[in-house]
């Protein structure tokens, strides 16, 4: 029984009242750095450990909600930046999208334990999907961006029809993003009149 006693003592970790807050601040700082491209000096070991400890001590929900809030904040900044992009809207959108997916991959790395344990046992949406959903809700579903997106796409197609050379890689990336988000159909349907034109045009672009 001496063994048991030891375990009991050990498993009761001293958790100060602000333990979770402090730990979350470490993680949040890491996430901010990742989004701000200051991640060269970040320690995965430290961030993973913090995230692991939070979930281990059943602060998984706090971490999960905190993640959503933080990512949303950064998405709002991105939205403004994309919306204010004048000439190169598709470029800017594509650049932000690439940044975003890379950042989310890193965030998934440090929050892996939450994805492994908290998410399945609490029937939450996995982080990858959360990331896509947030991007869709805050960027693609923004009225201004949606209009810009459709217009830009149509314009590109029109230009190509007129014999100009357009950036196929960029188009492909944007279409891939829409497909990944599951809003491809949705965005297309908002431009009924050109639907078949676009589908025809995109088929070879996307393939």
């Amino acid at each position: 029984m001496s063994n048991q006693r030891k375990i009991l003592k050990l498993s009761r970790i001293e958790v100060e009242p602000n333990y979770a807050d402090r730990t979350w601040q470490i993680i949040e700082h890491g996430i901010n750095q990742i989004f701000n491209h200051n991640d060269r000096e970040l320690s995965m070991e430290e961030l993973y450990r913090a995230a692991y400890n939070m979930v281990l001590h059943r602060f998984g929900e706090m971490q999960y909600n905190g993640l959503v809030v933080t990512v949303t904040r950064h998405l709002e900044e991105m939205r403004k930046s994309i919306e204010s992009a004048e000439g190169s809207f598709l470029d800017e959108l594509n650049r932000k999208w690439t940044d975003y997916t890379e950042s989310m991959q890193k965030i998934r790395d440090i929050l892996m334990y939450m994805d492994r344990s908290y998410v399945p046992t609490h029937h939450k949406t996995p982080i990858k999907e959360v990331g896509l959903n947030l991007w869709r809700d805050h960027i693609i579903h923004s009225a201004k961006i949606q209009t810009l997106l459709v217009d830009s796409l149509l314009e590109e197609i029109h230009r190509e029809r007129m014999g100009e050379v357009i950036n196929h890689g960029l188009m492909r990336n944007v279409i891939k993003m829409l497909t990944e988000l599951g809003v491809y159909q949705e965005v297309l349907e908002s431009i009924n009149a050109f639907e078949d034109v676009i589908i025809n045009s995109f088929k070879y672009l996307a393939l």
Partner: protein
Amino acid sequence: MTSKPLSSHHHRLSSRSFMSSLSSPPPLPPPTIAPMPPLQPDRGAEMRQMDCNLASLCEHIQAEGFGSGAFSDVSVEAMGSTYRLHRLILSRSAYFRNMLQGPWKEAGAPTVVLQIDDPNVNSEAISICLAYIYGQSPKLTDNNAYRVLASASFLDLQDLCAICTDFIISELWTSNFLQYQIFAESQDYGMHGERVRSACWGYLCQSATMELREVLPKLSAQTLHALVTSDELWVPNEEKRFELALHTLLAKGTISEEEENSSSIIKGKTVIGNSSTEQLMESELLHLQIQDNLGSYKPAQSNRINLSDCMAEFQSGVPFSNTVLDGANAKRNAADPTIDCPSPSGNSSMYKFNESIWPRDCSSSSPTNEPLPSMPLWANGTVGRRQVKNNAATKGRSCLLPSDEYEAFMNIFEGGSLLYCNMSFEALLNVRKQLEEFGFPCKALNDGLWLQMLLCHRVQAVVADTCRKCCLTTNLCACSQTYTFTHGGGGVNYYRQDNDRSTSPGSSNINIGNIYLSEAQGDGGSLFGSSRVHRGGADGLAGIGRGSTSPGSSAAWAPTRFVFSRVPVGLGTRTESETARLDHNAEISGDGLTVLVGLSEERVYDPSSMSSRFSGPAGAVSGMSGTQVQMVDSREENGLGLSPDWEISEESQETSTISLDFKTPLSHFTPFRFGVEFEDVHQLTDGQVKHSPEVFYAGSLWKVSVQAFNDEDPQGRRTLGLFLHRRKAEVTDPLRKAHMYIDSREKVTARYKLICPSKREVMVFGSLKQAGTLLPKAPKGWGWRTALLFDELGDLLQGGSLRIAAVVQVV
């Protein structure tokens, strides 16, 4: 009496396939160092050579790589040890892979320093995990399995986690139960932790009454409450369940005292002011008549708690905190608050309700404005007429319980965990005596007694209404059908009620003149707003049970909350107009509640705590408002035709009013739970049967039997069938005659479940959400021929015996 089970309407196969998808791989298939599958003749020398090659590669990696650190390209420092390792091999773990290939500081570093804060992780466990990455099979013991699990969980070695979990589950015994329970409960190890936790739960349900009894006081309040409440807990009967809870309460008090003696004072533990506790407490207080002998007594003073006196002993790991009242006993004794329990049989002068003497909001009245952690009101002063001093010997210990513990026990004893209505009268007397000594208000218990009487009346009324030939209610019975009735259009609701409401309680069960018909109960809102049709008493009998369907087709119905509202005297509930009451009922009828009087005025009892037991069934039923529901309801209500609302006059003269209801369908009553045990089941020969002793419930005698079969499983495996038997009660023992009544029907419809808890899984057969099964005539039983497989019995038995918890509800 040979019981030949009639049929098996639910094959184990379907549930098995479901279970097997949940269950883990078989315990400990150790990953062999060199995977050498049995050589098949057709594979030839080439394959054999390849296996050889693989084996030598594995050996090389382990010996040269992990053992000697040859060609190491990264060092890992963890828990005081340095390992010279290899990126390629480490990348088998997602943790290392992400770390070594991402944009991180560690990615290119020659040395990775791992700091692991989880105290369950130690150096040996890390070493086992790293060796596992290099292909070595872990050597698990009782002492390191959980440590390896914690380490593997941190390093994201899912396979190793599964191996550890399998080991822990297969080696879960009385001696180490608590350590694993706390391990899995206090930390989140994801699905592996959950598997350990559910294994602990199954084991606890199976053995809490016997082998694990002494562990109960050390469980968390939450787990303890869940356990005592659960149908899955194997316990012979409701009295034993109470004894178990009481034993735990006493033992907890003892533990608290012991720890107080040896404790170091630490900073006061902030006890979360749980609003539901306060709500509950507040509501309790409204019922407590406090005799204030001094007149100047200030409750706030006597309850002030000096947090510096709060003591907690953390050695046990369970956060016990002993709260000590400031000012100690002197002030309290001077004040000498007397707490009275409402008692139907009590001297009414003792039960004056004096609300003003006690603050409505306990926490705000505290001078320090701190939440009151302990609130051991119920152990403070004299209690009831028994005048038991709380500091008298052992009983006084319980007042040291912290508030979450207190709340758990309050919920257990008063909040619906115990189904008092299924206890015998003698047991109730005894239980009441003991609860009074602890100062529990005993309201749930009193309600249970009323409910018991009501159930008796209802069963007898149903019996009187049932054709003896065909076992159907009179309206369905072709033997004497004289009156047919067709339902009106869907929107028509009938409310039929005899004006004669002065029916005396004693004769009410044979008063069939009052017809209460409510077809649309499932519709919720529209229910009682319907037209009311006065109906003469003359055709009362003819109308019984019209519109019913065959029992099998009816949908599930949420059980009525078996709490009756209690309203303090003076709140004028009896003068409430009937219309208002009906409107009120309509609001809440969606929950399957019967008439609750005056609930909106005074939430005397916190319904949320009461309903917690039934939250599942109620929730499941909320969406099912179909005609079937209505029909069931109308059949049962119509068939009884008793006065819809009966106020118990004696009770109402005292502190509260109980509104019992004679239209309550049988399915609204609490189910009956009992536990049976079969010894040496594995020795049963084919066809051999074992019967449990019979227990009495709702006018019938019930038992469970097991029978061995060799011809039921499609794959030819031997199976063990589980069957429920029911026969009409016989009053043979004159001593018990007073409490026995007889349901003389040959067949009754019941819903039931048979639960076999074990650490492997908690197997549940049947459901209380189903419509009900027409149980065959005694001595036949009804159940599952292929419930259990003989080869699996080893995992399910405890000390060689099979424990089955049964839950039955006559509908």
